[in-house]
């Protein structure tokens, strides 16, 4: 099988890294997850019907691997639901943007839904497929995320 790995990596690396950065704590973890996602593609040798299918598969596998990464984080750290340090851990890429810092306060699923909707311009139906949720759940995440962000932004003003 000869696959154009260059095309695949150049097409999706940025997107996957951004998704990971919405899930994981730091750039190092994010890069690990992105590389594992691409390696999973090589291992599984899946033929895709279309570019959209390829993209959806990569997003879904990437999100699953991000969850794995979080699980290992839970293991490494005695997890407490009130652990604010874990919640507010900054990315290694230092950003001064209050908007991104507010987004990081959202639960990971809401963060990812916000990213796919507002940045990737993905239709809700495809976000639902990629995230393994029904469309109403995705709408719920977006709605909740927007409300929290609106409140935080108003408070800042």
């Amino acid at each position, binding site marked *: *099988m000869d696959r154009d790995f*260059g095309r*695949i*990596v150049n097409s999706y*690396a*940025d997107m996957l*890294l951004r998704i990971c*950065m919405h899930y994981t704590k730091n750039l190092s973890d994010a*890069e690990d997850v*992105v590389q594992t996602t*691409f*390696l999973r593609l*090589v*291992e599984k040798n899946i033929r895709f*019907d*279309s*570019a*959209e*299918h390829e993209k959806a*598969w990569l997003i*879904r*596998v990437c999100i*699953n691997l991000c*969850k*794995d990464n979080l*699980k290992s984080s*839970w*293991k490494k750290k005695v*997890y407490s*639901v009130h652990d604010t340090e874990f*919640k507010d851990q900054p990315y290694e*890429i230092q*950003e001064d*943007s209050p*908007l*991104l810092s507010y*987004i990081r306060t959202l*639960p990971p*699923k809401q963060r990812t839904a916000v*990213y796919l909707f*507002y*940045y990737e311009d993905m*239709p*809700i*139906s*495809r976000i639902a*497929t990629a995230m*393994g949720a*029904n*469309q*109403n*759940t995705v*709408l*719920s995440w*977006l*709605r*909740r995320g*927007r409300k*929290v962000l609106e*409140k935080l932004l108003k408070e800042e003003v």
Partner: protein
Amino acid sequence: MFKDDYRREVDKLTANEKFKQDTISLMQEKQQQLEKENKTAKIIKFNPRPYRKLAASVAVALLAVSTMAYTFGLPDFLIGADSTTETERIDSAMEQDAEGGDAFTNYTADASPALSHKENHRVYSIDDAKAINTAEQNTEKSKGKIFFDTTLTGGFGFEGYCFYSPDELEQNSLYTVGDEFDTLPVYEYKEQSYQEQVKLMKDYISKFGVNTSQIKYKWTRPVYNEDGIFMSHEDAITFTSNIPSEEYMLNSADSELSITYPKYQVLGDTSLWAYRNELRVSFDSALSQTDTPQAVYQRAKEKYPKLISENMDYTGWSHYNFYGEVSYDVYAYEKSDDYGQTLFNSSVNSINISQHERLETDTEPTTSIFWIQFPCYELAEYLPAIDYQQALDLLFNGQFFSSFSDQISDDTVISHIELTYLEPPYSLQTLKTEGYSVPFYKFFVQLPEEYDKVTEAGILKNYTVYYVCAIHPDYIQLADNYYHFN
């Protein structure tokens, strides 16, 4: 404004060239490695020891192996392959037991006799199972069977890891290991007319106490190009005066009532995503704040007695977000005297009362959304079913499908079995949405303790699931990607 600001900030997060080149190199190395290993078979194993309910039937399972080999025409060489290696691994596991290092200690209190699992360990090759399944499909015998496709894009492809409370898993199970039945019903999807669809929606809306005569609705018919390829926007009936669109759908989430009936959608320029006809009614109603699933169900029943009737029952699931905050999903379904019909109703024909995730910032009562997915099925026929032990044998032989992306490891356990109905794939590159809803055994494989999720409400166990068709193989044909890992 938000969108522009957000995009500008996210644009700063990019993968650098070195990272991309390193990744490409890794992929090439991986491919070369795989080409070297090429035909290496994946190994599936089963350890019944920690599963209490299975333990008592160990001897019967052994008998079932030989029976199934005869019944399903499986060649003998599949059974017991690589037994030497397996024995060595079990010995190693037993040593761990002695040292108290077994991850499953908590689940062995009333398990089978300590040594009995040794002779029940079997190792099979997925590649062998594939060859058999393919051979079966090519025979004349396969003609006329009901066909069930497990296409990767059919909605099962990425189920992945699932967190459950073991108690909830037991409480919500309608199937008990040992339930007896010779046949199970199979249901066929039925396309409905426009008039039937509108009537169905109005019936459901009225059950919420909404006067349907005051609601406008719009019907958008599909548009095809000269090659017969579907080209229009989402084809939907929506009970508003707006044209359905993604933006509309987002805004509609802020309204109390949102009803859509999606059928087809275009993905990109060339890809088509075909949906079945199914009714989705979202109805926001603040039912409760921190109630249990039982309380959520009772309040819904009191508030909408026409929707949640006396003849209904429910299953309830807790969901925990990243911070351990809990919300509930309640599935209300109609009970039936027929065992299979009740299973079908609970799996497919249910009303989902879904609560929003609660956040620390929440000051308002949690909102509940009623989500009615009402696929249109008719009873096709009752077909001979297999029992769970026969299903286990098929599982051992690789006759399953799962979205779990890793191989089953040495310390795999099956900790729970369900019987559930799956719907036919509906996201195909065609406009066809027909198919059968078929019963499947759902085997829950518990991952090691290190995958547990600790929450305020207790420990959630992490599972991956494997599906084995519950209809006898003589009566059903499964797609050649039955054993597909993604």
